[in-house]
């Protein structure tokens, strides 16, 4: 049915995960990994692109181990990577509460939360390593919340039945990132890491089949630079900005991983997108990004919309019996606390029925009136004061007197470059960590797991597994032709963008692409909508290349050029996302195909046909699908139910 859009290649048979009991696999892998003689480490050069939790911790650790590291980020300081924005917390199987948590339980919850589309071996390792992350962070001085007894506080998060989420007020990502950043700066001072800020990776250098370096643009001078190394690590974060509006930072992009994909790295599960239910709704066309509000709000706030479509009365004038508390109505057991994807979709449904509130009818109420009545204003203020303040700052409305409006927004991308158990992509020498890879969350990410994964990859997993690859190095001179070819590709693209001289800005194309993706490949996808998108995206891309306007020169700080370059890659990625979403005719986790739902409108998996990772190879004639089968030896596959 979809032959037109892709072809199928060989399945992936080996992910390099060791065999044997699941709890011994990581031990086994560590022991089998070759060690690098300390004297040789200096001679081995590793490039790390990205300084978020994954890249920052990786570069710092590799530097500490004695490797010769070069690190890049597009911001003016490594401390500003988007990980800084994470609010809620980080999971770890410490069982400090004695409430029955264990490595096995975290493993179990994560596999289940990922709707059985994640690898058991990887997830188990993640749960094992989670314990060390907290130790490491505390030793670095990360000021996690504490109890009066002086011990660490935890909370339960995202429907988990145990309290395993460590947090630092609403700024967990910030504090963890600053820990990694400080470790990184320490290595920079020690001379083991060379940092290049305001440098954007625009191409990967592949020589003799190995990843050997990157082409970057100095964003201040516009100079195109070549950097070569024995191995390259990409830690460039997620691509949620393909939707234009998302909770991601403005600069988040797909360029680094997309370029690597173009050069041979497979891209896995691109369609898995996490939508977060509690964001502040869009207020107008000029809107440049969406702001997330902590999910904890759903603990006390009640979600509702008017019963009647098109009811434009202010909330206060709508009597109780004309309000529809739809989550409580449809999901009496979990009520307002249903998982992210379910809450998001339910909001979309009521808005589609014309019952949405606020500008454009794209919003639902999150009402604290009951909570204020029950707990008192002071208690509510104590618990949620800073979130209310943030809401008021952005919307100009007072949530104490008038219900908040919320709407779902794109938040996280579970897809990314395909990596094996060693975090190595299909290009030897190219490693991918953090949100940029696809590895550990399956079709849906459990809250508070991305921080865990980024740090597990960067502090503990990659530094071990990359050693195994580097032990066979140094890999000698890099083929000059390969470098020159990559550089030319970059220069050609920049010249092209500057020379079109059309009539629309890159941002306006990005907005249109984002809208299209949201409408056709967003919270709910259908065969029809995806086909429409696949028709429209190439047209829009064509138009972009004919009609985009980028002012200024290449050899200067040029933000218009930066944006245009990123948008160009988003077009290509968007197309692959739609192909992936179209081919996966089941619903699972963050991928909901309207055709595949049960009688109650819940996501219906098709384990028979889709219990695999979809790894896409780039092909001039369209993408080539490689399937990596997923086996569940430990956690029995089951259908989720939140009724």
């Amino acid at each position: 049915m979809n032959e037109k859009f892709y072809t199928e290649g060989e399945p992936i048979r080996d992910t390099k995960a060791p065999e044997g009991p699941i709890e011994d696999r990581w031990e086994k892998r560590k022991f089998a990994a070759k060690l690098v003689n300390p004297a040789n480490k200096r001679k081995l050069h590793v490039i790390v692109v990205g300084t978020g939790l994954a890249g920052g911790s990786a570069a710092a650790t590799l530097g500490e181990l004695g490797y010769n590291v070069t690190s890049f980020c597009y911001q003016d300081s490594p401390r500003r990577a988007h990980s800084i924005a994470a609010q809620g917390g980080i999971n770890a199987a410490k069982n400090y509460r004695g409430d029955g948590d264990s490595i096995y339980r975290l493993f179990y919850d994560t596999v289940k939360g990922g709707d059985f589309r994640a690898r058991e071996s990887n997830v188990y390792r993640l749960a094992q390593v989670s314990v060390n992350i907290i130790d490491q962070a505390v030793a670095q001085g990360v000021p996690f919340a504490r109890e009066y007894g002086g011990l660490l506080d935890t909370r339960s998060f995202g429907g988990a039945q145990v309290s395993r989420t460590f947090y630092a007020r609403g700024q967990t990502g910030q504090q963890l990132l600053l820990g990694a950043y400080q470790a990184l700066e320490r290595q920079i001072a020690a001379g083991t890491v060379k940092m290049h800020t305001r440098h954007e990776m625009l191409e990967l250098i592949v020589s003799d089949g190995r990843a050997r370096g990157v082409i970057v643009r100095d964003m201040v001078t516009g100079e195109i630079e070549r950097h070569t190394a024995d191995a390259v690590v990409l830690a460039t974060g997620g691509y949620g900005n393909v939707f234009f509006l998302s909770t991601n930072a403005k600069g988040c992009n797909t360029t680094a991983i997309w370029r690597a994909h173009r050069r041979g790295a497979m891209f896995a599960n691109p369609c898995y997108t996490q939508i977060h239910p509690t964001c502040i709704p869009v207020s107008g066309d000029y809107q440049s990004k969406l702001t997330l509000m902590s999910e904890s709000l759903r603990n006390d706030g009640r979600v509702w919309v008017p019963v009647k479509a098109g009811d434009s009365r202010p909330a206060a004038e709508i009597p109780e019996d004309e309000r529809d508390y739809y989550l409580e109505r449809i999901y009496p057991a979990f009520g307002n606390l249903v998982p992210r994807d379910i809450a998001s979709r339910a909001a979309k449904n009521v808005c589609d029925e014309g019952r949405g509130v606020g500008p454009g009818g794209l919003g639902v109420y999150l009402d604290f009136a009951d909570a204020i009545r029950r707990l008192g204003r002071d208690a509510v203020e104590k618990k949620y004061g800073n979130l209310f303040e943030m809401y008021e700052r952005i919307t100009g409305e007072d949530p104490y007197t008038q219900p908040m409006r919320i709407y779902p927004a794109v938040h996280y991308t579970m897809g990314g470059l395909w990596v094996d158990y060693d975090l190595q992509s299909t290009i030897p020498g190219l490693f991918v960590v953090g949100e940029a890879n696809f590895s550990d969350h399956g079709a849906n990410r459990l809250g508070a797991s991305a921080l865990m994964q980024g740090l597990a990859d960067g502090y503990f997993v990659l530094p071990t597994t990359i050693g195994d690859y580097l032990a066979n190095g140094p890999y000698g001179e890099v083929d000059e032709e390969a470098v020159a070819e990559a550089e030319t590709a970059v220069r050609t693209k920049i010249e092209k963008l500057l020379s079109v001289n059309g009539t629309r800005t890159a941002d306006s194309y990005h907005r249109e692409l984002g809208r299209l993706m949201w409408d056709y490949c967003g919270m709910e996808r259908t065969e029809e909508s995806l086909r429409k998108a696949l028709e429209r995206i190439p047209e829009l891309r064509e138009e972009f290349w004919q009609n985009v306007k980028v002012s200024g020169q290449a050899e200067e700080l040029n933000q218009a050029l930066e944006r245009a370059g990123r948008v160009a890659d988003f077009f290509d990625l968007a197309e692959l996302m739609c192909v992936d979403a179209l081919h996966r005719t089941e619903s699972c986790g963050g991928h909901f195909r309207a055709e595949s739902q049960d009688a109650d409108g819940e996501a219906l998996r098709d384990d028979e046909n889709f219990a695999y990772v979809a790894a896409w190879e780039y092909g001039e004639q369209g993408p080539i699908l490689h399937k990596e089968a997923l086996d569940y030896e430990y956690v029995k596959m089951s259908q989720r139910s939140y009724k």
Partner: protein
Amino acid sequence: MGMNLTLKVWRQNGSEDKGRMVTYRVEDVSPDMSFLEMLDVLNERLILEGDDPVAFDHDCREGICGMCGMVINGVAHGEQVATTTCQLHMRHFEDNAVITIEPWRAAPFPVVKDLVVDRSAFDRIIQAGGFISVPAGSAPDAHSVPVKKVDADAAFDAATCIGCGACVAACPNGSASLFTAAKITHLSLLPQGQPERASRAKAMVEQMDAEGFGGCTNTGECTAVCPKGIPLDTIAQMNRDYLKASK
């Protein structure tokens, strides 16, 4: 019905350029726009006119990355308290207002272009000692050292600094004391930070001076504009640690 505004914006084409104020009109600005979204609108227009858009730093647009920052009508991040530029909304301005927009002004923060400045001096202050030395994998169990809740909370308050540089921009002396003190205080209050406490304070203060920041005369402008409300007593803490270390 949007607002109409006159913007006087500092334009400087690279660090060598002398720079000048340029006046722009922006029309039909929605009061719900953020300050940066208002500049986006101006920039879209400038690009279509073939002009250089006004360069400014930003990333998260939710007040946490510390990338954005400009001096608006003489106040770093504008007059709203505890607010970054990206979180400042146009509803706080009057219709037909004239708004002056300038970059952070400090010698250790050279202008890169327009409103973009180079804040790498902050990174070098951290490099001098703003960390606890602990290689990955060598940490003891997190519960082996309890920390009093008050200390943990106070450390957190100091640790929320986003490194935006508004303190420097606002300080009449161009001092980086609040930024430096925030980090010193964060780490000094925790037991984990004790072994390196003295050397850290000394090295960071000396690096701050070497970068060319001015000295602190306790004017308190920094904490008043700080989007995270880093308190002034962090500076006392820094001075205390520094004097102790210099003895």
